[in-house]
């Protein structure tokens, strides 16, 4: 673990604003986060609190009307906000992966699971088709998906929501990234499937030393999976701490309110 000490993805005093027809919206105000390898950092807040904007900024995916006013996102103390197209392509998908809330929208319906999985592997790793296929199958197996050979021939619309979600995680994980940004990855799923996906992400963080930013509004999920927690409200982080601190000794009134709202 020694050599990983400096290996950290940091969000430093980030300000993001959006130009809209109703004027300027300050979506993210002075947000700082640290995502460490081998740990799961949960970012919690209700819709509109700015959690997705934070993650999209990390991924350099802000919409055209969004702008970083100040602050920075750094990987090992090097800024990743003003990269060239080529540098971005090397970083994202390879070292930092992302999974989204809606897997059916994230997977192109015209391609088979095999094509979707192999695309990234061949672009980033310049592998032979055979090698890439081996890794693709392995990552499907890791996601606990049955009969991966058969699955590779299918197109996303032939799969259930839970399977699509696992395929998307498999695509992200096949690149063996150092960091994973997971934006509400289980919100749309049944509890039985959710439990499996959480288990997979947890195992990856422990076994593959993956650093995870887990965005969610579900405190039950946070209690199950997170090591560190940041609570976000109206674009600001109102409290952060370890999962025990947040659940057993919440300081901020909003955190207490959130904990009470869990049914």
């Amino acid at each position: 673990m020694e050599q990983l000490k400096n290996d950290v993805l940091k969000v430093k005093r980030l300000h993001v604003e959006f130009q809209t027809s109703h004027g300027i919206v300050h979506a993210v105000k002075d947000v700082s986060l640290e995502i460490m390898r081998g740990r799961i950092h949960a970012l919690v807040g209700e819709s509109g609190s700015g959690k997705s904007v934070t993650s999209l900024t990390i991924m350099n995916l802000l919409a055209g009307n969004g702008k970083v006013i100040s602050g920075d996102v750094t990987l090992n103390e090097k800024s990743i906000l003003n990269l060239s197209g080529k540098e971005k392509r090397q970083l994202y998908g390879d070292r930092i992966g992302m999974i989204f809330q809606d897997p059916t929208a994230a997977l192109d319906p015209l391609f088979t699971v095999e094509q979707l999985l192999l695309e990234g592997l061949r672009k980033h790793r310049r592998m032979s088709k055979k090698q890439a296929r081996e890794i693709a199958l392995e990552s499907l197996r890791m996601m606990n998906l049955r009969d991966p050979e058969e699955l590779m021939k299918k197109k996303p619309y032939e799969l259930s929501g839970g399977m699509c979600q696992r395929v998307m995680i498999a695509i992200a994980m096949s690149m063996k990234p150092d960091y994973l940004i997971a934006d509400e990855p289980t919100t749309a799923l049944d509890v039985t499937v959710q439990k499996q996906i959480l288990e997979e992400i947890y195992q990856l963080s422990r076994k593959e030393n993956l650093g995870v930013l887990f965005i969610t509004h579900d405190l039950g999920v946070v209690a199950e999976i997170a090591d560190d927690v940041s609570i976000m409200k109206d674009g600001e982080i109102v409290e952060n701490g370890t999962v025990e601190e947040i659940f057993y000794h919440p300081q901020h009134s909003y955190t207490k309110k959130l904990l009470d709202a869990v049914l």
Partner: protein
Amino acid sequence: MSTLLKTEHLKKYYGKKKIVKAVDDVSLEIHAGSSMALIGESGSGKTTFGKLIAGLEKPTDGKFWFQGQEMQDLSEKQFRPYRKNLQMVFQSSSGVFDPGYTIGENILEILKLHEKLQEGEYEERVKEALIQTGLDTDIRNRYAGQISGGQCQRANIARALVLRPELVICDEPVSSLDYSIRKQILHLLNELQEKYEMTYLLITHDLSNVPYLCKEVAIMYQGRMVEFIDHTDSLKETAVHPYTKDLFDSIPIKEPKMRRIGSQEKKIFSDTIPEQGCPYQNRCRRCTNICREQIPELTEIETGHFAACHML
């Protein structure tokens, strides 16, 4: 309590070559003034069941009665008078409103279709329904795209309530909403029931909503009812069916100290639907030979508690 809705061996099959049994032999009774939860994961047939009794789909086989009237063979026109008392609140709240009309116009249209009132009374009723659901009456002049998800879901409930229905089928009324808003909406539904003596069928995959709103629980798996419990106190302890137990075990608990993740043995789910026998056999820990051959019948294990499992 009188029976408001009753189904007998209700079935809905889709497809010609490969038959999908969306609802398979479901019999239940909903009493006036009660509230029942219908629980199951996606693909369990719970929404199809809701659509069947709301008259939005025709059953393949079986019968159902609403207010004593046999409903399954009624034509669209014959069904319409009953629809006033049989309303459904859909999951996607923004999808139910025509985006080209204001919320007020949307609600008004439904009211005009079902009731003949004096000119001024229509507006009054729309206003009343919006106030009942805790909305500002200004919402009337807004379009669905201009209001938040929580507001839209309230308007969605107002749309159903404006007709003062007896039975409201709520299909995942809160699953697209934030936790803080969920509680409000459930609270609202609870309050409205007490005030107007409405009957609910709550369709959901989220067990945590259930004790809050419902007195009875039916659990569905792959189209079949696998367990029925007529009370909701200590549900988790009462449940006996392996599927119901697995469901409860999957709910995250808000106690980091009791975390179960990373501790359990790996279990591979099968997504295939068995050709014969118990629908849950591929995922069940207690599956034996008889489970692969015969479909278990729903049997009463104690008063008001039914389960369909060979191993009980």
